[in-house]
């Protein structure tokens, strides 16, 4: 009976499994859910497995069960609701067109402002007089809570508490901060970096060191002394190269530095190097990029299995990347453009990624991002991006 809700969640991108949906049905059948508030809470606990989807869940819930609320929401709620509804409906022009009572072709000709007007008008009409059934946008007449008095499984429609109904709670968007599209903040860093920890499983002390055991036992005159060792697992070597110059990286420097400081303890060998915009003949071991140059050629002598992680916005004037004398440092005149240097690094280290603090949707607008993406797999500096980057670094290792 809640199947439309289930599909709404799936369509919104929340990975709801049929098994968990059946489990929810079981909870309903057991009488654990007695009002909409209960339903809101129980369904979320059973269906949604990450707080990153809580915000989305709230929005879907509010949209889906809105029809059971007859209070007029305040203007802010309205605009928010309309925005989310429109967004989702625009993905389904056919449905939207039929809800507005026009053809799909006509829909394409309506300017956005007028579209919103029409939409609002329809919504107002429905707030004034809820007709239940097919006219209500978003439910397509499949709402389980029509006013026909349908009381499935003991669900009490009238039992909504006035002060803090589930729909109100859902519309508060309390979990907006957790949603996964947001860029990383310092407070999230610690969490995100636990992903990097996965790269270096430290073994338990579970191997008997036979040589040492025999020796120690002999030494103690036959008193058995078992010596245990950690099972050997190679810890990773990592090079982090960080763009720490230029105003465009400024907002991210704090976040990135936390990332590096935290990561320091996680690896067998971590080398942090710095650069500005892109890499020419040298990287730098000191953050001001003045005293300790590190020739790019040196990298060739390092272990190929080293993970090479570059953090930078990859944004600059194209000549900085392509020209043979693109570097602002006068001593860097090897005649090799940065582009070639980056290729050299990528060839040396099969496991390399570029992490970019700029949101992926903006990447197509910057030429150099496109060029660098041809060399390195690029990921966003977000929780999701970091996860993907780590997965990529760990692939076929």
């Amino acid at each position, binding site marked *: 009976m809640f199947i439309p809700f289930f599909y709404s969640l799936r369509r919104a991108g929340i990975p709801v*499994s049929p098994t968990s949906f059946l489990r929810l049905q079981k909870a309903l059948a057991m009488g654990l859910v007695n009002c909409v508030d209960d339903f809101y809470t129980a369904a979320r606990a059973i269906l949604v497995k990450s*707080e990153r989807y809580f915000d989305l869940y709230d929005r879907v819930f509010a949209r889906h069960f809105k029809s059971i609320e007859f209070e007029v929401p305040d203007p802010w709620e309205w605009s928010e609701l309309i925005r989310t509804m429109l967004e989702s409906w625009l993905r389904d022009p056919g449905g939207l067109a039929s809800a507005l009572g026009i053809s799909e072709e006509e829909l394409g000709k309506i300017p956005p402002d007028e579209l919103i007007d029409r939409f609002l008008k329809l919504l107002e009409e429905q707030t004034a007089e809820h007709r239940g059934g097919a006219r209500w946008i978003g439910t397509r007449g499949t709402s389980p809570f029509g006013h026909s008095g349908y009381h499935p499984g003991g669900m009490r429609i009238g039992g909504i508490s006035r002060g803090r109904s589930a729909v109100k709670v859902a519309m508060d968007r309390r979990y907006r901060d957790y949603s996964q599209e947001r860029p990383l903040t310092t407070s999230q860093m610690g969490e995100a970096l636990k992903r990097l920890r996965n790269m270096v499983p430290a073994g338990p002390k579970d191997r008997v060191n036979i040589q040492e055991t025999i020796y120690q036992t002999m030494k103690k005159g036959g008193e058995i002394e078992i010596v245990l060792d950690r099972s050997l697992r190679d810890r990773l070597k990592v090079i982090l190269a960080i763009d720490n110059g230029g105003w465009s990286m400024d907002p991210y420097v704090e976040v990135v530095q936390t990332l590096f400081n*935290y990561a320091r303890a996680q690896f067998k060998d971590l080398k942090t190097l710095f650069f500005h915009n892109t890499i020419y003949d040298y990287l730098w071991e000191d953050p001001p990029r003045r005293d300790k140059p590190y020739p790019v050629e040196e990298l060739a002598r390092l272990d190929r299995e080293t993970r090479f992680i570059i953090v930078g916005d990859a944004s600059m004037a194209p000549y900085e990347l392509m020209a043979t004398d693109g570097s602002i440092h006068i001593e860097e005149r090897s005649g090799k453009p940065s582009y070639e240097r980056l290729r050299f690094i990528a060839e040396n280290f099969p496991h390399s990624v570029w992490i970019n603090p700029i949101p992926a949707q903006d990447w197509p607008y910057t030429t150099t991002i496109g060029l660098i993406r041809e060399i390195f797999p690029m990921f966003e500096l977000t929780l999701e991006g970091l996860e993907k980057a780590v997965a990529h670094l760990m692939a076929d290792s």
Partner: protein
Amino acid sequence: MDGETQTGRFTGASKYVLDEELAKIVNVSIALEMPLLLKGEPGTGKTMLGHAIAEALGMRLIVLNVKSSMKLVDTLYQYDTLTRLNDSRFGDSRRDVSNIEEYIKMGKIGQAFVSEDRVVLLIDEIDKADTDFQDDMLDILDQMEFDIIEIDKTIRAKKRPVIIITSNAKKDLSDPFLGRCNFHHIAFPDPEMMRRIVDVHFPNVAGDLLQSAVETFYRLREIRGVEKKPSTRELINWIRALRGDPDFHVKDLAKGDIPYLGVLFKKSSDYRVARNGVARFRP
């Protein structure tokens, strides 16, 4: 396993301020016999919840503190070979060396299974273990049985325990794992909730101290660049320190004069950042 066990409804405990939503989730999970996975930043009361449920429902609590080096079998049982070896050599114990069963010791999950009464099994910080550990553990909790290979015996849960699992990480757990749990994320308490929590710990704390301390606490949490923000535990200790200091006046807090910062910020780098941040509080 006895699915019919009547277990009371959880409505909070003496030292635990429960929000209504969480109570519902706990009760649904108990009724469905599903493990409940709790996430949230440290200090949001995840571990405390396990204790509170046990207290409220009058059940024994078994805590499994997960460590990164832990192997799953250790949580089930241990075959104490060393004691057996020693017994066989010295022969001065009352144990029967030929009976391996005498040398099998139950781990935390094993204890929960063999218990005659229904218990609360709190699996704390599951994210410390690796994915295989997590998935295999859920398999066992799903089937409610495991084998002891040394004595070729299967241990089945007498009463299905109430299982609470906590995790600090935001997304560390595999999909199969998540699929078998109910899930809740405990948000950091808002100031109103925090006042109630403090109130439970210090029922006779002066109203103005409570107000100022909580207010200051949330301002301190806002300081940028702090790696480990102070949590509920630190706040409670801090209030304890403030109350114990005869020279302390509540008005000082409003003036930006904040004593015992070290109780709130335990990392030296955070302490330094906080010191500098506090300077800006002064009017």
